[in-house]
């Protein structure tokens, strides 16, 4: 299978940038990487670990401002950094393909797909010009895009994220590459789309005998596509070994901590957080870079950087105690999330909530043209005090839209939002009283965007304190410090600005700002999706503590089923703005499930080498809900007939408040899921 002479051979590569003071700040420290033909290597690490820098260096490219300090980057026997620009241009996109994270941005918006693919062929394909059209169709067929002819004529914005990613793969394949560099190619895609793309990449790598370097922060993805894994930490390789061994029994404490911080589907437990943060470029480090965060660290660890030592099962680990890594987390389970008492008083009630984005123009109204179906429709949710309801679904399922309506940023077209004391909330912020506003607070997805970069942390926390409680000067400062303490940051952070904080710290400040209002209901909009897994675990843990301490109710929105599972008491699965399934978390994640829930659950990747996702429905993206019938009718793998197209599915009660909206009877759904033949 794998050729033994390496195709990509990076030796002791050091890359850095010149800081403001003029000193060289290293980003990569003597990193090695060898990839042979037919082999796929996963590079794992958190943001800032240098994983993308390493992968891009393999094609002789460094981001603006970075420069090679020392080391060799050998591709196919020649040093990449010695090539002339013309030679590099020939190699890149030809023998060496790159698939970037966000292909939507890598495609030219004003050129048809066909033109863009032909351009790649023109540059990197030996075939005569006349055969390029056929070749372009072949490529699209290879990446399993239906109806290649039609796609070739389209513009990038007419394709879904998954389709754009497939186009990027097709373009990378145009030059018949020997090696493929993939920089988080499925990050940001829906679970089902991600699963489909990964299966495609697996098959391509196998059939074309390519070398693959797969960069990802997600060990689940790596588990599915890679033969070997290399774990980077603060610009150093800390662990290298076969995927199976690394995932089963990692020989480095960092890798073990990283694995433990990934939330799982099975048990409802909070993942374990890794405290601290890696040293940044140029920060002084003595000894092992991970030592400050490592429970095993000894005097020897802090004295000198440990060498790479052979650990168990073919692993090489930069740890003095490769055999002791399991002492850190052992096999102990994570903590249970705080549940809420049954039949707590009501905190928030949504009744028949319906939201529309379309605004009929004057002529549409005069003509009485039929309006498209509402983006979000028929949402009934009852949130108890201290309860967490998870809203889960793919992008475009209306999760965030519902949150915005509750927060008063988007007036609903129909339906009522009622607070716990039976006061009906006015539809928009302008109509609500300060006290009503105070009781509902929202935390946003990306803390880079939700914190004003020009304000200090003190200014940021001052806003709600001044607005709701009229606190000033020293009172305000005292309260701000208290809040920072509750999110485990503390007073030294008061005068920093968001730009000086790490992603996790920023999100904690955002959490503190929401809790400054003393809210009863906190709306969380994908609040961990922009964070690294270890940081995500810490934020989830924090929310769990706050929930217990303040009896706050949460509406927790995420596309990530495992994260929702970790924290939620009850879960609603949304498709196209309609609830497909609702019930206690354990019931929703078990059998029977709505066919859509089943599709999602089967596509979830876990960092388990033996786990394979099951691909059920096609990963087509729908832009609007169907006018009538079941919202999932167009993608349903177990559609039972015309009734799905015409009739709204009945809400079937599966016990204990677990409701599934499907035409298929519950016992049949259950049977399908457990793998038995359906009783027809």
């Amino acid at each position: 299978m794998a050729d033994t002479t390496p195709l990509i051979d990076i030796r002791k590569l050091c890359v850095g940038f010149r800081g403001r003071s003029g000193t060289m700040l290293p980003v990569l420290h003597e990193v090695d990487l060898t990839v042979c033909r037919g082999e796929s290597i996963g590079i794992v690490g958190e943001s800032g670990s240098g994983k993308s820098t390493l992968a891009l260096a393999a094609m002789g490219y460094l981001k603006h401002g970075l420069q090679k300090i020392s080391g060799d980057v050998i591709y196919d026997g020649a040093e990449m950094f010695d090539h002339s620009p013309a030679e590099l241009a020939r190699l890149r996109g030809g023998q060496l393909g790159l698939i970037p994270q966000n292909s939507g941005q890598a495609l030219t918006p004003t050129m048809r797909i066909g033109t863009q693919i032909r351009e790649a062929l023109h540059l990197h394909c030996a075939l005569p010009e006349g055969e390029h059209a056929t070749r372009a169709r072949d490529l699209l067929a290879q990446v399993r895009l239906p109806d290649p002819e039609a796609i070739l004529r389209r513009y990038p914005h007419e394709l879904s994220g998954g389709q754009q990613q497939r186009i990027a793969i097709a373009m990378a394949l145009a030059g018949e590459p020997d090696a493929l560099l993939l920089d988080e190619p499925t990050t940001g895609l829906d679970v089902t789309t991600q699963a489909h793309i990964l299966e495609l990449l697996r098959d391509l790598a196998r059939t074309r005998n390519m070398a693959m370097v797969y960069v990802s922060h997600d060990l689940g993805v790596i588990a599915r596509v890679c033969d070997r894994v290399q774990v980077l930490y603060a610009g150093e390789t800390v662990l290298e070994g076969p995927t199976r061994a690394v995932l089963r029994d990692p020989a480095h404490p960092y890798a073990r901590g990283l694995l433990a911080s990934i939330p799982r589907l099975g048990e409802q437990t909070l993942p374990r957080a890794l405290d601290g943060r890696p040293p940044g470029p140029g920060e002084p480090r003595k000894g092992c870079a991970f030592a400050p965060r490592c429970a095993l660290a000894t005097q020897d660890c802090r004295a000198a950087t440990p060498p790479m030592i052979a650990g168990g099962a073919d692993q090489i680990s930069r740890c003095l105690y490769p055999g002791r890594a399991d002492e850190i987390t052992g096999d102990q389970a994570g903590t249970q999330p705080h549940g809420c008492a049954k039949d707590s008083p009501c905190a928030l009630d949504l009744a028949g909530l319906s939201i529309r984005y379309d605004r009929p123009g004057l002529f549409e109204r005069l003509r009485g043209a039929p309006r498209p179906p509402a983006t979000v429709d028929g949402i009934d949710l009852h949130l108890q005090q201290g309860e967490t309801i998870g809203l889960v679904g793919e992008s475009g399922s209306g999760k965030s839209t519902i949150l915005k309506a509750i927060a008063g940023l988007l007036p609903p077209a129909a339906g009522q939002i009622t607070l716990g004391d039976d006061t009906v909330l006015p539809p928009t912020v302008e109509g609500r009283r300060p006290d009503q506003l105070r009781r509902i607070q929202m935390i946003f997805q990306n803390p880079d965007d939700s914190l004003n970069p020009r304000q200090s942390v003190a200014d940021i926390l001052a806003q709600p304190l001044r607005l709701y409680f009229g606190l000033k000067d020293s009172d305000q400062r005292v309260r701000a410090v208290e809040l920072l303490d509750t999110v485990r940051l503390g007073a030294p952070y008061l005068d920093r600005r968001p730009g000086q904080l790490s992603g996790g710290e920023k999100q904690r400040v955002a959490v503190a700002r929401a809790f400054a209002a003393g809210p009863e209901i906190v709306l969380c909009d994908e609040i961990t999706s922009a964070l690294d897994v270890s940081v995500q675990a810490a934020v989830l843990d924090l929310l769990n503590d706050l929930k217990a301490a303040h009896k706050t109710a949460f509406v927790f929105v995420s596309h990530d089923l495992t994260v929702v599972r970790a924290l939620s008491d009850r879960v609603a699965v949304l498709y196209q703005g309609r609830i497909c399934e609702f019930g206690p978390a354990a019931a929703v994640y078990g059998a029977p499930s709505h066919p859509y829930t089943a599709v999602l659950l089967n596509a979830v990747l876990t960092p388990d080498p033996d786990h394979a996702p099951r691909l059920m429905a096609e990963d087509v993206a729908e832009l609007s809900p169907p006018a009538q019938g079941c919202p999932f009718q167009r993608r349903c793998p177990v559609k039972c007939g015309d009734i799905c197209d015409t009739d709204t599915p009945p809400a079937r009660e599966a016990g204990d408040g677990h409701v599934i909206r499907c035409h298929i009877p519950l016992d049949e759904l259950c049977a399908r899921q457990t793998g038995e033949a359906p009783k027809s």
Partner: protein
Amino acid sequence: MSTATPAPRGLRSLEILRAMMARPSGAIGLTLVAFHLVLAVLSPWIAPFDYKAMDATLTLAGPSPAHWLGTDHLGRDVLTRVMLGGREALLVTGTATPVALIWGGLLGVYLGLKGGWRDEVAMRLVDAFLALPGILPLLVLITVFGSGGEVLMPTLAFFFGIPVIRVARAAAHEVVARDFVSAARARGHRPLDIVRRELLPNVTDTLLVEGAMRWSWMLLGFSALSFLGFGVSPPKPDWGLMISDARVYMSLAPLGVIAPVVALSTLIIGINLSADALAKTLGLDRSRKAVI
């Protein structure tokens, strides 16, 4: 993730100045502007002659040890008048520019936040004003209210504030789309609070650069008015007026035109270069974060 310690708030402007001086355009531009400002302040004391003093025996003279730049058609010293000729222009435009920037900026940011019909109506009015040749409405107002600093200042501030609305609104639109503004709206802050705390700090950079550009346009406009006879009234010296008076005698005493032209051009070039350096410095400030 930048871990470098940033300067406290007060030091930021100093740091920006230093960064501007590090660029050739900033160094040249700031030096020119500073030279003109110093000259404008000190000229009453250092000018060699009285600007009104006429010498009928020495009209349209060439350069001499007494009159370095010669004399004009009334025998007044050109050097003296050039040194003093920027005072009125700098005073009027120097006060009108901040006023234009403030009213145009605030209105633009507010419209950018509110949107809706107010925005629609205001922006169509702005379009209408921008469609007129700039000097025409100015001339109308001056004919009605008379010339002189106390009329020119508010008139210039009004007309030069209109394009600022557009720039400030566009800059605000970029910020309004961000979540921290949504967060402030969801908390229930009043629009003016949001403008002051969330929007203005984020559009100041754009407004500063815009202000520097507006200043140079306003100087040109002021000089054009003087040239046409609607600005500074004689015998006060002013560059625009001097060019207008001396152009008839250009073949006899070219320095009478060249000297005020050079003075006006160096000031405007200086402002433009400084604006350019400021834009680059501030832009760099923002992009510097994304090194890794």
